[in-house]
């Protein structure tokens, strides 16, 4: 909160339609990179344990992730459901991973083309729908 900005007009009050009051980077305290982990859009996250009073320094967004990830949830779904940019979600996930509150399952590295077993599994899965 900067008290004075000479080039800004008088304070304008806005309602919720104007978007969140807290900027995404405030939730991450200015960090743009996670402290641990490497989170792809389709990395699947699951909660290991509930947050407890010893988990100091975590905010309501961390808690929301821990809640959502009781079911396996991708980074993209977290971003959509929490209405937060992916970059912000990655930083928050890094905090949770370093405290072993979550586990993350990354997609297989793309070195070679996928094997027949993956194609067959996905094709059969779609057929069954």
């Amino acid at each position, binding site marked *: 909160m900067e008290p004075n900005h000479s080039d800004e007009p008088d304070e304008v009050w806005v309602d919720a339609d104007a978007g969140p009051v807290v900027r*995404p980077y405030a939730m991450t305290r200015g960090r743009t990179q996670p402290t641990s982990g490497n989170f*792809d*859009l*389709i*990395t*699947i*996250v*699951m909660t*290991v344990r509930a947050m407890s009073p010893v988990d100091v320094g975590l905010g309501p967004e961390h808690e929301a992730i821990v809640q959502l990830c009781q079911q*396996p949830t*991708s980074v*993209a*779904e977290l*971003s*959509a*459901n929490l209405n937060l*940019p*992916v*970059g*912000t979600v990655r930083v928050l996930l890094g905090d949770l991973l370093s405290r*072993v509150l979550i*586990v*993350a*399952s*990354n*997609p*297989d*590295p*793309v*070195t*070679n*083309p*996928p*094997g*027949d*077993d*993956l*194609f067959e*599994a*996905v*094709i*059969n*899965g*779609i*057929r069954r*729908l």
Partner: protein
Amino acid sequence: MASGDSDVSNGLSVPKATKLLIAGGFGVGKTTLVGAISEIKPLRTEETLTEASIGIDNLDGVAKKTTTTVAMDFGRITISSHLVLYLFGTPGQDRFLFVWDELSTGAIGAVVLADTRRLDDSFPSIDYFEQRGMPFVVGVNCFDGARRYQPDEVRIALDLEPDVPVILCDARDRESVKSVLIESLRHAQRRAQRQRTPSPA
């Protein structure tokens, strides 16, 4: 290699995910297609990027950076307790092609959805996948009232390689979408089988 096995850590069995891309021009029905088959209502995720992260200019030390928001719609299909498939609609504009790089990395297949009334709109997607060597099929979304073309007419108009499947479809229809997705996977699988001949890598 890519077995789709789930990760076991901390005693939890966490599924792995893979993804398929749905590309095509604005308003061609990408999100409709995703919605026709996804088990969740299509969701939207946003990536906020600064000019610096776009990597064109070095803005170190420059106080004011332009931020851009790129939105991507996606859906989910649970294949098994070990494997989840995500369908990602690619953002339309050319200037977001670097987002496509992230999206297409690790994708097992791609569909270019085309509208015969505006075939030109599918060229950027086709060019992109051809340049990256990413296997794709063309799904011709048969809008009500649009003149029906034969797949071969579309193939010629789009100047496609002979092995690229062209399928007439209805992006609103679940069974039709299923066949397009399966065809895209079969096509990618044939490509992968051809590439899997021993090579130094």
